[in-house]
C-alpha cells in the first residue's frame, strides 16, 4: 500500500466536542490510490468524507496520520492537488474565462498571457463552453455551466491529483447526467488521478474504477474497496445491461442501507484500518466462490488484504 501513488496512512481526525471528550470522526483510516485511477468515496453524511477531502487538499490538518503523494508528504494546499468544490467556488467578479485563466496563470507563471488564454479557452471548450458564454460572469451562468467552468479550471491546471467534492450535488438529475458524461470524456483523454466524493451510487458506478465505502461515524472507517468490473468506455444506457451492474449496485445499496450502520462505532485500538477489497464479477471468475457474505450468493468474492 505504501508504494501507491497516493497513500493515506493511519489518518485520524478528532474534534473537541465541548463536553471534555473529543469526538473522533475517523480513526486510523488507511488506503491507497494508484496513478490514473478514478476513485469514488461513498458514505452517509457525517462520516468524515469531506474532512478526508479537505485533508487531501491540504486545507485541513488531520489530528494524526500522514498523506503521502508521489513519495512526498502532503502539507498545506498545492497546485499539484486541484479541487472542484460542491458550490463551484468561482470568483463572481471574474468572467468564466478569467476564472480559468486565474488558475492557469497561477499554475504556469512563466506563460505569456496569450498562451494562458488559449489554453483556458481550449479547456472550456472541452466541457462544452464556447463563444460568448465564456465571457459571462458566473451569476449569468446556470448551475451546470458554473460547475463546468470549475471542472475546466481544475483540469486545465493538470494537477497530479484531482479532488472532486460532490461536484454534482447541487445540480438537477438531467444536467448531472450531461456533465458526468463530459467529465468521463475529458478524464478518458488524460491519465488524471481523480478522488471524488459522491452521494449517488449510479454516478459512482458510472465514473469510478473503485469505490471506497465508509461506515457511519463516529469512529468511521473505510470498510470496503469495491472494484467496478465494468469495462470502459462506459455509457450510462449500456452499463445497466451489464451483468455486473446490479450485482455491484445491490452490494453498494446493502452496505449503505444496513452494513454501514452495523459496522459503525468500532474503535481501531491502534490497528490500521485498511479497507477489504471486494471484487464482484459475474463473467470472469465463476469458480472463485469463497464468499463470506451470503446475501450476494456465489457472485461475491472477498479478498482480505
Amino acid at each position, binding site marked *: 500500500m505504501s508504494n501507491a501513488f497516493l497513500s493515506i496512512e493511519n489518518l485520524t481526525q478528532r474534534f473537541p466536542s465541548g463536553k471534555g471528550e473529543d469526538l473522533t470522526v475517523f480513526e486510523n483510516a488507511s488506503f491507497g490510490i494508484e496513478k490514473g485511477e478514478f476513485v469514488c468515496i461513498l458514505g452517509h453524511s457525517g462520516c468524515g468524507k469531506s474532512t478526508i477531502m479537505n485533508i487531501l*487538499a*491540504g*486545507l485541513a490538518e488531520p489530528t494524526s496520520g500522514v498523506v503521502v503523494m508521489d513519495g512526498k508528504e502532503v502539507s*498545506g*494546499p*498545492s*497546485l499539484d*492537488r*486541484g*479541487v472542484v*468544490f460542491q*458550490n463551484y*467556488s468561482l*470568483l*463572481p*467578479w471574474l468572467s468564466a474565462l478569467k476564472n480559468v485563466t*486565474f*488558475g492557469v496563470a*497561477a*499554475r504556469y507563471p512563466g506563460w505569456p498571457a496569450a498562451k494562458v488564454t488559449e489554453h483556458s479557452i481550449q479547456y472550456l471548450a472541452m466541457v462544452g463552453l464556447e463563444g460568448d458564454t465564456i465571457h459571462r*460572469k458566473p*451569476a*449569468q451562468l446556470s448551475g451546470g455551466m458554473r460547475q463546468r467552468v470549475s471542472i475546466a479550471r481544475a483540469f486545465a491546471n493538470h494537477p497530479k491529483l484531482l479532488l472532486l467534492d460532490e461536484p454534482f450535488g447541487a445540480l438537477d438529475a438531467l444536467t448531472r447526467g450531461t456533465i458526468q458524461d463530459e467529465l468521463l470524456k475529458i478524464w478518458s483523454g488524460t491519465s488524471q488521478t481523480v478522488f471524488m466524493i459522491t452521494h449517488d451510487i449510479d454516478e459512482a458506478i458510472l465514473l469510478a474504477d473503485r469505490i471506497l465505502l465508509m461506515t457511519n461515524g463516529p469512529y468511521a472507517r473505510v470498510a470496503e474497496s469495491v472494484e467496478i468490473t465494468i469495462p470502459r468506455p462506459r455509457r450510462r444506457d449500456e452499463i445497466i445491461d451489464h451483468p455486473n451492474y446490479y450485482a455491484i449496485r445491490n452490494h453498494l445499496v446493502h452496505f449503505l442501507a444496513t452494513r454501514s450502520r452495523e459496522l459503525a462505532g468500532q474503535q481501531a485500538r491502534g490497528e490500521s484500518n485498511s479497507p477489504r477489497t471486494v471484487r464482484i464479477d459475474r463473467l470472469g471468475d465463476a469458480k472463485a466462490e469463497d464468499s463470506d457474505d451470503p446475501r450476494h450468493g456465489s457472485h461475491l468474492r472477498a479478498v482480505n488484504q
Partner: protein
Amino acid sequence: MDRLSTNQRAAILSFVILVLGLFVWEAAIPAQKAASELTEYERLTGGGAPKAGVPPPSQVIVKAWEQLSDPFYDAGPNDKGIGIQIAYSLYRVLSGYFLAALVAIPIGFLIGMSPVAYKALNPFIQVLRPISPLAWMPLALFIIQDSNASAIFVIFICSIWPMLINTAFGVAGVRKDWVNVARTHELGPIRTAVTVILPAAAPTIVTGMRISIGIAWLVIVAAEMLVGGTGIGYYVWNEWNNLDLTSVIFSILMIGVVGMALDAAFGRLQRAVAYAE
C-alpha cells in the same frame, strides 16, 4: 400618460414640484410698501427703509447667473469667485480624504484579516469614532499651528472611521471558499489580498468610502466657518456677515450640488466594483 416611461414621468413630476416650490417661495415674501403709501408716522419711524427679508428666488437666480458666469474672479481676500471658493474646499476635502483612505484601508485590511488585531484596536475605534470631528479643531490648531492644515486634519479624522470599519467588515466577510481557491492555487499572502480579498471586499470598502466622502463634505463647511480665509464654508459665513442673503442661499445650493456630484462619482465607482453572487 401611460406611454411615457417611469423616468419621463418622474422628470415631469420633479419639474412641477420645482416650479410650485419656487412659486410658493416667491409669493410668500411680502412686498415692500411703496413710499407714497406710508403714513407720516411710518416715515418718521424709518418704515421707508427697505426691510431685510429673505430674498425671492428670482433674485437668487440673477445672483447665480452673475456668479456662475465668472466663477474664478479674484478681487482680494474677501471677494473671490464661487469657483475659487469651491476649489479650496475640494482641495481640503480631497487631501484629508485620501490621506484617510491611505491609513484606513490598510489598517482595515489588517483588522479584517486578524481577529487579534480586531479585538486589540476595537476599543480605540469605538471611543474615537463618535467624537464630533470639530471637537478636534482646537487641539489641531494648537499642535499643527496652521489653520489650513488643521481643516485638512479634521477632514482626515472624520473620513477615516467609515472607511476603516467597512474595510475591516468587508475583508472579514470574504467567503471562505474564495480564500480556499486562492490557497489551492498556492497564491502568496500579497497576491491573495490583491486578486481575491480586495475584489471580494471592494463593494463594502467603496460603500465605506462613499459614506466618508459624504461626511467629509458636511464637515468642511463647518470647519471652514471656524478657520476662515477661503473655502465655501467661509464664503457662506462671510456673506452672512455682509448680510447678503442672496449669496448665502446661492452658496447653500452650490454646497448641495457639489455634494451630489461627489456622491454620484462614488456611486459610479460602486457600480464598477459590484458583482452578483
